């Protein structure tokens, strides 16, 4: 309980810090700019960070893979392809996440199919399948960008990951999905713990492994697809945060889901704030670049030193 209060206090501090930082200083900021630009962006970064970390926590468990998250498995790229297609077809905001979800699920299916090739579901096979999916989806997105040059100009920046043009309508939509995801996975955390066992043991403990795994895969894909639809591909939050949380709070999914959500939210919010203020001229870096940089370094660290200790 003390830990939770501590994290909540940190969350509040990060929120205040993020709201006070930006190209326009606190003193020159008017109410309109604060309410319509900065506040929605801060809330959205918070929600997206939470969802990415949650989907990472789920994917690492379900694929039994320490290197899995929406980005490394290629699900995010598949969802991005869906979202780009949605944009090409001129679909409205509510439908783009739906198309992204369908593509994310298809992507997941492809990873499964490729991963099954060696019958072991070894984690390197899954990651290789993810790389393949990433390459194919990126190629198709590049083709679409080339072909629909005019209408997809904004896609380039969006794909790098970032929070632009955030409206309250989007926030409500994303918040609803984030809440559904959190309540669903948090209420089922004890079942998720059983999925840490091999399939035979988990089945013998009363969990219908196939059914539960499918359910949570759809949930992870949904979280990834919705985040991609609003903020492009933001990698590595889902990879780093669940590991960090396991290292600090232990493996129990009850704590992992809760703290991954909170710490993921704080992490992305801080990264976004940093990306807003890091260039002195007032220009900003796409947040995806920032998380990819931090995440890439963490990836190296994880591969070299820590896998055995927190996995």
């Amino acid at each position: 309980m003390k830990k939770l209060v501590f994290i909540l206090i940190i969350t509040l501090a990060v929120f205040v810090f993020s709201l006070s930082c930006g190209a326009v200083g606190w003193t020159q900021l008017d109410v309109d700019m604060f309410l319509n630009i900065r506040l929605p962006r801060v809330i959205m970064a918070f929600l997206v960070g939470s969802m990415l970390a949650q989907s990472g926590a789920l994917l690492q468990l379900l694929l039994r893979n320490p290197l899995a998250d929406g980005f490394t498995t290629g699900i995010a790229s598949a969802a991005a392809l869906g979202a780009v297609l949605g944009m090409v077809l001129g679909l409205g905001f509510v439908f783009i996440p739906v198309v992204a979800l369908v593509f994310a699920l298809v992507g997941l299916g492809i990873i499964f199919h490729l991963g099954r090739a060696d019958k072991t579901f070894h984690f390197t096979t899954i990651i290789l399948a993810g790389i393949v999916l990433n390459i194919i989806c990126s190629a198709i997105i590049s083709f679409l960008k080339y072909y629909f040059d005019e209408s997809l100009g904004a896609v380039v920046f969006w794909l790098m990951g970032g929070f632009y043009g955030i409206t309250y309508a989007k926030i409500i939509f994303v918040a609803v999905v984030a809440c559904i995801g959190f309540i669903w996975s948090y209420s089922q955390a004890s079942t998720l713990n059983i999925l840490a066992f091999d399939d035979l043991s988990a089945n013998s403990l009363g969990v219908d492994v196939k059914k539960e795994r499918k359910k949570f895969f759809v949930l992870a894909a949904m979280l990834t697809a919705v985040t991609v639809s609003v903020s492009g591909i933001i990698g590595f939050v889902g990879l780093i945060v669940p590991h960090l949380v396991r290292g600090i709070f232990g493996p129990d999914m009850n704590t992992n889901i809760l703290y991954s959500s909170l710490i993921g939210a704080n992490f992305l919010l801080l990264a976004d704030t940093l990306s807003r203020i890091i260039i002195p001229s007032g220009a900003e870096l796409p947040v995806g670049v920032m998380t990819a940089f931090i995440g890439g370094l963490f990836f190296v660290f994880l591969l070299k030193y820590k896998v055995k200790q927190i996995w």
Partner: protein
Amino acid sequence: MKALNIDHLSVTKDNFALKIKELSLNNGDKLALLGENGAGKSTLFNVIAKINPHYQGKVRILGKNLEEYTQLEFARKVAYLPQFFDLIFGFSVFETVLLGRYPQTQGRYGQRDYQLTAYWLEKLHLLELKQRKFQELSGGEKKRVMLARVLNQDSSIVFLDEPFAMLDVKFVQMIKKILGQLNKTIICSAHDFNQIKGFCSRVVFLKQGKIFYQTQTNQIKEEVLKDVFEVDFIKCSGYFVPV
């Protein structure tokens, strides 16, 4: 009511077929399944432990067909130790054994669950290891932890697939004693007849997917062992030694 009743069971997988005409067990019976690698022991376990639903014939546990149980209901009646197991994420030994209470509690662990967990940890000499991470243990230690997890399930029927593999002799003896004292129906598979002697009253020999022979444990003859394992045995103070 029988604990287990198998009627014309048939399982086919790749080039292997398991066919069992009839096998039944009364409550409290302790049965050993013996046979070479690939004789069908694990295949049989995976069917009667409600893991593999692809079979023909009838399997009844405590008077009910397997299909009539939900996975959770079944786990409250039957605990199963598979031959190979795994657990990711760095769960401690204590947490691993506590997870055995899941079928009874669905994750809402209370005082009684903690007490039972401590009981089985002590019984299987695991108290010293209780804070250690499961993945960091040796093969034999992992086996004992999983056995404690299975027994912590507190079900009336227990299936154990090769529980003695990788165990030190002193733990084989200790676990045989514990299993012998349990008032539960047990089916236990093994490679070595000597490992099940002392706590299983009945033996079923499997060979190439069929019941080759069944008898009381104290009536086994060298010739049967020779036919099953294709090695000569001599009897020495009630134990069989391959020569």
